């Protein structure tokens, strides 16, 4: 079983290095997808096995296995769908592999320090992917992303340092998450409190929670489509996972009130930012980015409620949102290829003009807005219920109101793009790659993603035990 811990880290690292070395080979394009499939398979097997696997600094409990599965699923959708729309010229492919290796390491590491190093490494791997286009906008986005990302994560590092230092009171400082949450350790409360607060603040920057979100719309709108999908579905989720890990450390020593208070505040603020900026948004990739901020806010509220229902729903929401958002970025990338503009006003009548793009865009937007039967509907309702159960009815009410505003904002923009008469002619046809894959190969990832977003909520029998185990492993109910 221990091989399942090393495969998701080593396969992407080794293949990424190979691609960097021989990027001219034709198969280089397919390597990231192959890596994603390996990660997904390992995640599925680990979740199915349901046992705790440990090997040196790596450790997979139910929570880590579940998040690894999320990474794999999102990456498969984003990279499969991205195959036909974008070429990253070899170097990009190897950077994506490095990104996936770092994400797997962050999730599977038992050591908070190693987790931090891996999350910071993703900033490095994605910096040039964000700036890939080389335009003024892309350079600006990459600069803001790296500065804000690394400063945010540096704050988290200070937090990790203080958590480590707090262990000196008990004589044996450690960064092992198992040891820190075991309850056998004495931490000095002042240092632990400061450390946990700073770590949550820092990782929240990386998770795109307001008010530290300003890098996110720029980076998501400038990066190539599959990279935007990966950042939205994988990077943000893993940063949230880091917050969950830190929360558990806090829970074992200083209580969870501090972390939950922060998460409720970040969550409501993120919903507010998303609500008001989607109303006036003019760029559809930025629209999707603000929707990501909204969904991270919802997840933060679920975790912040402090109930098992809230945490379970937040974990399911992570998967549902990630997969659907990856598909949406893939479609947005294709729309951009067809129309040559990312302005909402330049895209009209997609349903008539390009039904193969218009329908998935409309259906995917419905999933993002939380229409039944999509899983987001059930998780959003569950999180609102969880907030009420926890006595945070004012937060539930505020969140419901802000979700309504976002609903109006996004629905208006998406309907304007899809329904209605086609306007201008196509920009320059479809900029597909020379050896274009067959049609079913292009449609399949989006179809699978949207279908699984709709079906997953009815697989309760399969998913409830998995989610319950993951929530128990990550939560404070230990």
């Amino acid at each position: 079983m221990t091989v399942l811990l090393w495969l998701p880290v080593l396969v992407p690292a080794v293949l990424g290095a190979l691609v960097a070395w021989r990027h001219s080979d034709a198969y280089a394009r397919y390597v990231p997808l192959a890596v994603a499939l390996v990660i997904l398979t390992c995640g599925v097997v680990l979740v199915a096995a349901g046992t705790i696997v440990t090997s040196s600094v790596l450790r997979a409990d139910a929570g880590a296995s579940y998040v690894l599965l999320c990474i794999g699923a999102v990456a498969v959708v984003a990279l499969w769908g991205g195959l036909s729309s974008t070429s990253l010229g070899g170097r990009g492919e190897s950077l994506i592999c490095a990104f996936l290796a770092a994400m797997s390491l962050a999730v599977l590491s038992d050591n908070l320090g190693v987790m931090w190093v891996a999350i910071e490494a993703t900033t490095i791997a994605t910096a040039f992917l964000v700036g890939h286009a080389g335009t003024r906008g892309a350079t600006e986005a990459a600069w803001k992303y790296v500065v804000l990302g690394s400063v945010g994560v540096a704050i988290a590092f200070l937090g990790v340092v203080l958590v480590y230092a707090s262990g000196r009171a008990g004589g044996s400082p450690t960064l092992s998450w198992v040891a820190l949450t075991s309850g056998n350790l004495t931490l000095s409360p002042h240092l632990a409190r400061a450390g946990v607060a700073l770590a949550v603040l820092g990782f929240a920057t990386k998770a795109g929670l307001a008010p530290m979100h300003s890098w996110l719309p720029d980076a998501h709108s400038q990066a190539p489509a599959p990279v935007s999908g990966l950042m939205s579905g994988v990077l943000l989720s893993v940063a949230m996972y880091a917050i969950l890990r830190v929360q558990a450390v806090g829970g074992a020593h200083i209580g969870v009130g501090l972390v939950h208070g922060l998460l409720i505040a970040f969550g409501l603020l993120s919903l507010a930012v998303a609500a008001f900026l989607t109303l006036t948004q003019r760029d559809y990739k930025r629209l999707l980015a603000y929707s990501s901020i909204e969904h991270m806010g919802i997840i933060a509220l679920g975790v912040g409620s402090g109930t098992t229902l809230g945490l379970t729903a937040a974990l399911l929401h992570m998967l549902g949102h990630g997969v659907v958002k990856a598909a949406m970025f893939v479609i947005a990338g294709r729309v951009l290829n067809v129309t040559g503009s990312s302005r909402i006003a330049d895209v009209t009548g997609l349903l008539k003009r390009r039904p193969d793009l218009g329908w998935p865009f409309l259906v995917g937007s419905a999933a993002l807005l939380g229409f039944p039967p999509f899983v987001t509907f059930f998780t959003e309702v569950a999180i609102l219920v969880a907030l009420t159960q926890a006595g945070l009815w004012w937060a539930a009410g505020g969140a419901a109101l802000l979700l309504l505003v976002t609903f109006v904002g996004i629905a208006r923009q998406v309907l304007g793009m899809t329904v209605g008469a086609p306007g201008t002619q196509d920009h320059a046809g479809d900029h597909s790659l020379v050896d274009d894959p067959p049609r079913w190969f292009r449609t399949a990832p989006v179809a699978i993603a949207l279908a699984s977003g709709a079906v997953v909520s009815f697989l309760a029998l399969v998913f409830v035990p998995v989610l319950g185990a993951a929530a128990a492993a990550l939560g404070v109910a230990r």
Partner: protein
Amino acid sequence: MNASLTSSIVTTAVGVLLLTAVLQTWRRSTAASVRLLVVQGLALAGLVAALGASRGDAQLLLVAGLVALVKAGLLPWALGRTATGRLVERDSGVRPALGLLGAAVLTMFAYAVSDPLRGGDQSAAARALPAGVALVLIGFWILLTRHSAVSQLVGFVVLDNGIAMVAFLTSDGLPLTVELGATLDVLLVVVILRALTTRMRDTHGGTSVDDLTELRD
């Protein structure tokens, strides 16, 4: 090494670290900023070496060498280099007096808030902890008030030096693997930002972050 010598080396190193951070807010030219970073890196390495020698910890001495190599060597070198050779650049931004005033206020603030973190520990290292926090805050101050991309990078390095200082003063540094990983990460971030600065000069015709106004809502 006897305790009073260790204590005086630690105190001196901490003083130099704080002084170089404060001077960063005052100096305008990038070349001077980079020279100050070299001094700061050496002081940090000296601090780690003194702690290592006083505890007879060989691993800490190794880390001191690493710190000297990266913080006083590679980082300033990566920062000061450009495609066209040495970098000469002046930063607009807040006036020097205001910069100094900000740094002074932040230092006092750091001393006021860091007391609980010490938890009653009266050693020289623990008493120096507020200076580490001050470095972190001054790093932020530089990031906020400077407009040239390279000056912002200097702020980031000062911030990172502050965190490293807190780590060494509170717990003799992190485990070696984490320390190595973190050092490599910071080095790569600086190299990437430096490369982006060069690209910014090509696309925007300058390196002032005020010119980054393309993306907004």
